[in-house]
């Protein structure tokens, strides 16, 4: 190293993100130890990061759009979510997917009060607010108030069902197809299905 001083040993690139913070160093330390233990192969973690980067809520939106245009698919999705999303190449693994359908009388929303369980193979990594103590605490106690904070105001006659996810079961909300979307193809429909629509904290708008 050209300027190896007494206090700093710059044997890593100055902009190496794995030295960016104490937490980043922790992640690097853990990965190194697991590689040295022979548990992780070099590059294995990086490949999974790349794979996870490709999973976005757009994938879930495609599933919802298909359910809106294809009644047979919708029936399969509601009967066995894990099997139905496999048609999109999505593998839920050990945690089955249960899809809950919004109707003109029932609104569904998802939470994980104990931690952060979420249909990651379909929607990617959950947003910060989903993992927040506030959402986890309040979603099951005062869902209408929480929904109003998110801009979703429901009539008193609309029942609200809150689904508490677990390590063994993941939920996805199938939103209602909005009026004014007759004749739209799947791609166009998928564009109006946001991540939050599939958590139940937003409604799709045409």
């Amino acid at each position, binding site marked *: 190293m050209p300027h190896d001083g007494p206090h700093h040993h710059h044997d890593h690139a100055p902009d190496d993100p794995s030295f960016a913070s104490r937490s980043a160093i*922790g992640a690097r330390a*853990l990965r190194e130890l697991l590689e040295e233990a022979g548990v992780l192969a070099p590059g294995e973690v990086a490949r999974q*990061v790349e794979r996870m980067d490709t999973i976005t809520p757009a994938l879930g939106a495609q599933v919802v759009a298909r359910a809106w245009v294809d009644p047979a698919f919708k029936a399969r999705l509601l009967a066995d979510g894990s099997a139905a999303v496999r048609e999109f190449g999505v593998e839920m693994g050990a945690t089955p997917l249960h899809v809950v359908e919004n109707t003109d009388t029932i609104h569904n929303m998802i939470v994980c009060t104990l931690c952060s369980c979420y249909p990651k193979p379909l929607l990617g990594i959950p947003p910060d607010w989903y993992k927040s103590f506030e959402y986890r605490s309040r979603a099951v106690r005062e869902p209408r108030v929480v929904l109003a904070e998110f801009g979703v105001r429901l009539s008193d006659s609309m029942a609200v069902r809150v689904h508490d996810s677990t390590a063994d079961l993941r939920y996805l909300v199938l939103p209602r197809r909005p009026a004014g979307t007759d004749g739209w193809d799947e791609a166009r429909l998928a564009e109006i299905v946001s991540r939050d629509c599939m958590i139940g904290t937003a409604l799709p708008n045409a």
Partner: protein
Amino acid sequence: MSETDRGHHDIGGDPAGPVPRAEHALAPWEKEVDAIRYVLGQKGLMSADKLRLGIEQMPAEDYRRLSYYERWLASIAWTMEKDGVIPPGSFAARVAELEAKR
């Protein structure tokens, strides 16, 4: 079981303030921790249940103080040492070594 016997993670129904809506793009290290857990899970070494156990057994102050993926990191490191996958004490030692190189 009284209210006070609940674990620090068992917060469903508790009073709390407005849901913070700001979202941050994940830092590379956060994605890495997520990926490490996933790959270890695939190998049968770190189930979601073990991840939660580690998080639920950490001191309540840490649970509240640490960020989401800091909790994951602590839980995975603790579990890997406890299960003998990496040597006891090796995580803290390696962090200290790397810190000295900053």
